[in-house]
C-alpha cells in the first residue's frame, strides 16, 4: 500500500519534470524563432550597408543615370520622388482626412456607411500592381496624363488612401466626447466643433498614421512600373505632366542588371531609400510620443 503510493508520487514527479522540460524546450524554440527574425533584419541591413556605403559620394547625388557604373548617380530619382510626393501627400491627406471626418462625424449608421467602410478595408487588401493597372487605364490613358508625375502621384495617392483614412478615423474616434459636447454647449456649430476642437486634438494621430502611409508610397515600385515610369532618365521634370523617374525605379533598374557594380549602386540607392523611410518613421514616432502624454 505504502509502496504503491510512493511509486505513484514518483511517477507524478517524473511526469511534472517531463512537462516542465517540454515547456522549456518549446520556449527555447520560440526564442530561437524570435532571435532569427531579428537576425534577418541585421543581415539585411549589414549586407546593404557594406555593399552600398563605398558608393555613396557627392557625385552619386549629383549625377544622372549612366551606362558606366562609376558615373551613375541618383539625382533624377531623388528629385523625381520629391515631385511625386508633392502630388501624393496633399491628395491623399485631403481625401483621407475628409473621408474620415465624413464617416466619423456626419455619416449615419446605415447600410451605405457600412458598405463604404467595407469597401475601404477591401481596397487596403488590393495588391499594389492592380492599382498600377487602374492608374495605367484611368490616369495615363483616359485622362491622358501619360507616364507623368501626375499620373504616378494620383495612382500612389489612391494606393495609400485606405491607410490614411483608417488612421484618421482612429484618431478622430479617440477625441473625448466631453470636448465635443463642451463645444456644442458653447454654441458652436458642427463644423466649428470639428474644425476647432476635433481636428486639432486628432492631428497628431492623423499625422503619425499618414506619415507611415506616405513612407509606403515612397518605397512602392510595382505601380510605377505598370504606369510606365521610365528608369533611364537624364533630366529633371519641370512640370507635373513631365516624365520622371523615382528612387525605387532606379534601384529596380540597377538590380536587374547582371553586373555586380550596378548591384552595389542599387545597394547605395537602397541606403538612401531606407534613410528617408527611417527619418519619416522617426518623425512619426516622435509625434506619437510627444502628444501621447495628453
Amino acid at each position, binding site marked *: 500500500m505504502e509502496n504503491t503510493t510512493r511509486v505513484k508520487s514518483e511517477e507524478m514527479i517524473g511526469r511534472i519534470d517531463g512537462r516542465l522540460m517540454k515547456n522549456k524546450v518549446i520556449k527555447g524554440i520560440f526564442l530561437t524563432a524570435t532571435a532569427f527574425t531579428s537576425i534577418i533584419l541585421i543581415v539585411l541591413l549589414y549586407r546593404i550597408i557594406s555593399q552600398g556605403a563605398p558608393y555613396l559620394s557627392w557625385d552619386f547625388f549629383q549625377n544622372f543615370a549612366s551606362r558606366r557604373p562609376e558615373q551613375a548617380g541618383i539625382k533624377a530619382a531623388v528629385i523625381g520622388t520629391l515631385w511625386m510626393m508633392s502630388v501624393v501627400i496633399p491628395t491623399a491627406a485631403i481625401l483621407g482626412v475628409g473621408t474620415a471626418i465624413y464617416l466619423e462625424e456626419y455619416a449615419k449608421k446605415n447600410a451605405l456607411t457600412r458598405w463604404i467602410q467595407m469597401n475601404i478595408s477591401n481596397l487596403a*487588401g488590393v495588391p499594389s500592381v492592380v492599382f498600377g493597372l*487602374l492608374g495605367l487605364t484611368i490616369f495615363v490613358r483616359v485622362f491622358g496624363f501619360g507616364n507623368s508625375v501626375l499620373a504616378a502621384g494620383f495612382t500612389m495617392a489612391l494606393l495609400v488612401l485606405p491607410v490614411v483614412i483608417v488612421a484618421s478615423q482612429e484618431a478622430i474616434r479617440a477625441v473625448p466626447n466631453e470636448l465635443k459636447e463642451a463645444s456644442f454647449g458653447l454654441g458652436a456649430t458642427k463644423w466649428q466643433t470639428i474644425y476647432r476642437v476635433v481636428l486639432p486634438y486628432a492631428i497628431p494621430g492623423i499625422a503619425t498614421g499618414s506619415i507611415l502611409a506616405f513612407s509606403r508610397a515612397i518605397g512602392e515600385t510595382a505601380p510605377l512600373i505598370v504606369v510606365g515610369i521610365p528608369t533611364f532618365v537624364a533630366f529633371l521634370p519641370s512640370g507635373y505632366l513631365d516624365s520622371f523617374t523615382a528612387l525605387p525605379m532606379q534601384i529596380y533598374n540597377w538590380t536587374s542588371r547582371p553586373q555586380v557594380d550596378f548591384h552595389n549602386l542599387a545597394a547605395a540607392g537602397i541606403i538612401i531609400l531606407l534613410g528617408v523611410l527611417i527619418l519619416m518613421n522617426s518623425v512619426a514616432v516622435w509625434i506619437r510620443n510627444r502628444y501621447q502624454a495628453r
Partner: protein
Amino acid sequence: MPSIGVRGLKGARGLKTTNKDLSPVQQLLEKKYNGGFLNRSEKVIPAVLFIMAAVSVLTTLGIVLTLIFETITFFRDVSIVEFFTSTEWYPFSNTDPVYGIWPLVLGTLKITLIASVFAIPIGLAVALYLSEYAGTRTRKIMKPILEVLAGVPTIVYGFFALTFVTPVLREIFPSLELFNAISPGIVVGIMIIPTIVSLSEDALSSVPEPVRHGALAMGSTKWETASKVIFPAALSGILASIVLGVSRAIGETMIVSIAAGSTPSAALDLTSSLQTMTSYIVQVTTGDAGFGTTIYYSIYAVGFTLFVFTLAMNMLAQFISKRFREEY
C-alpha cells in the same frame, strides 16, 4: 423685451446703425442667420466630405470596371476556354501565341506555398513567444524590429533575395538555378512574418488575463496554457492573420520579378525559373508591348485573376474573424 425672431432680425438687416441697440445674443443670432457664410458652409461641408468619401468607392469601382472591360476586350482575341484550360503561356510567340493562365497561377502558388511554409511556423512562434513568454523588455526590442521589417519596401527584399539568399542557397544546393522558386519564396515569407506576428499577437493578447491565470492556477505549464487554452481562444484572429499574410504573398510583385525569373512553367519543379501572375504584368509593362495589342490586354486578364484571388482571401479573413470570434 423685443422678441428675437428670425423675421425680426431679417428685417433689421438693412439697418446696420441699429446694431448697437441689439443685445449681444441678438447680434450673434443675426450673424448666424444673416451672415450667410457660416450657415451655407454648414450645409456645403457635409456634401463636400461625402464626395471625398465617394472617391474611395469610385476607386474600387474603377478597379473592377477597368479589369472587367479590358478583360472582355482580351477575350475577343483569345478563347476563354484556352485561358482556363491550356497549360501553356506563350504570349510572345510570333507565330502561335498561347494564353493558358495555369502556369502563372502555378508560379504564384509555388511562391505562396514556400512563403507560407516558412512564415507561418516562425510567425506563430514569435507571436506566442511575445504574448506568452517574453517580458516587457524583449517586447520593447522586438516591436520596433518587426515594424522595420514590415516597413522595408519590397524592392529591397527583392534585392536581398537576388544578391544574398540565392547565392547562399546555391552554395548549399549547387543544382539550384539563379532564378528559382525557393529563394523568392523564403523572402516573401520574411516579408509576411510581421503581418502574421502582429495580428496573431493582437489576438493572443486579447484573451483576458483571468483565463490565463485560471489555467496556470490549475497547474498547467506555460506551454500547456498557451497551446490548450490561449491558442484555441485566439484561433479566429490567428487564422485571419495567416489568410491575410497569404493574400499579401499572392499579390507580392517585386521580390518575384527580381528573383524568380520570367519563364512561365507548368512543371512542379521548385529549383528553376518561373513566372507569377504579378511578375508577368511587370514583364509586359517594362517591355514595349504597344497599347491595343493582345499582350497589352492580357495583363488585365491576369490582373483580374489576381484580383479575384486576393479579394477571396481578404473576404475569407474578414469572414473568419467575424464568424469565429470568441466574445469575452
